[in-house]
């Protein structure tokens, strides 16, 4: 019944994240989930590579602080009730959930808008990195974001 921002090395259950942000007066929950993809297109070469598994690593205390800041900003900016963000760390098999962001709101419009804003900002500011491991090597993915404005 309140906000939460967590890092976990355990599998993430989407349902339980979505349910934990539900206050009794709310009408809708919008949930974004990201997951480990089998195929990734290389932005430079355009080639598609098959991923074996992923590894996520975080600057943990700062990542939690940045996620909490995002929750505070979202609640100040949008008419929403509660926000839950859980990001998985460690090794993820293909298809496993890497991140879940659930937003509850009296009106679903605000929940959609806030959820979309939160994932965009999380990918830009929260110090978490993804390593893609292929049959023939591995690479730390570098984000597209510039320094924080």
């Amino acid at each position: 019944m309140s906000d939460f921002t967590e890092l976990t090395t355990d599998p993430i259950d989407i349902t339980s994240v979505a349910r934990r942000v539900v206050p009794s007066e709310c009408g809708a929950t919008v949930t974004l989930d990201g997951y480990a993809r089998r195929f990734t297109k290389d932005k430079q070469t355009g080639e598609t590579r098959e991923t074996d598994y992923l590894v996520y690593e975080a600057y943990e205390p700062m990542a939690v602080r940045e996620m909490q800041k995002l929750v505070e900003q979202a609640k100040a900016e949008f008419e929403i009730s509660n926000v839950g963000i859980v990001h998985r760390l460690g090794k993820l098999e293909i298809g496993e959930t890497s991140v879940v962001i659930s937003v509850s709101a009296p009106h679903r419009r605000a929940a959609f808008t806030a959820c979309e804003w939160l994932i965009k900002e999380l990918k830009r500011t929260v110090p978490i990195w993804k390593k893609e491991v292929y049959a023939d090597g591995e690479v730390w993915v570098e984000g597209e974001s510039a320094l924080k404005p």
Partner: protein
Amino acid sequence: MKVNVLFFGVTADIIGVRELELTAEEPTTAGSIINQLSRQHPALANHKLLIAINEEYADANTVLNDGDELALFTAVSGG
């Protein structure tokens, strides 16, 4: 003064450790620490680095204080 420097992902791979305690003359900026590390680890210069001081984003001109925790990492890729 002493500065604790943390590395993650790409930067940890380049430096070979996840944490370094550096001794520096005052005043020292985050940028000058990066320059010093880049001389020992030239691969660091191939990457655009983000800087956090005491768990807050900061820029290269920020002057460090004794005991600060400086984190150096590439653009984040969570989600």
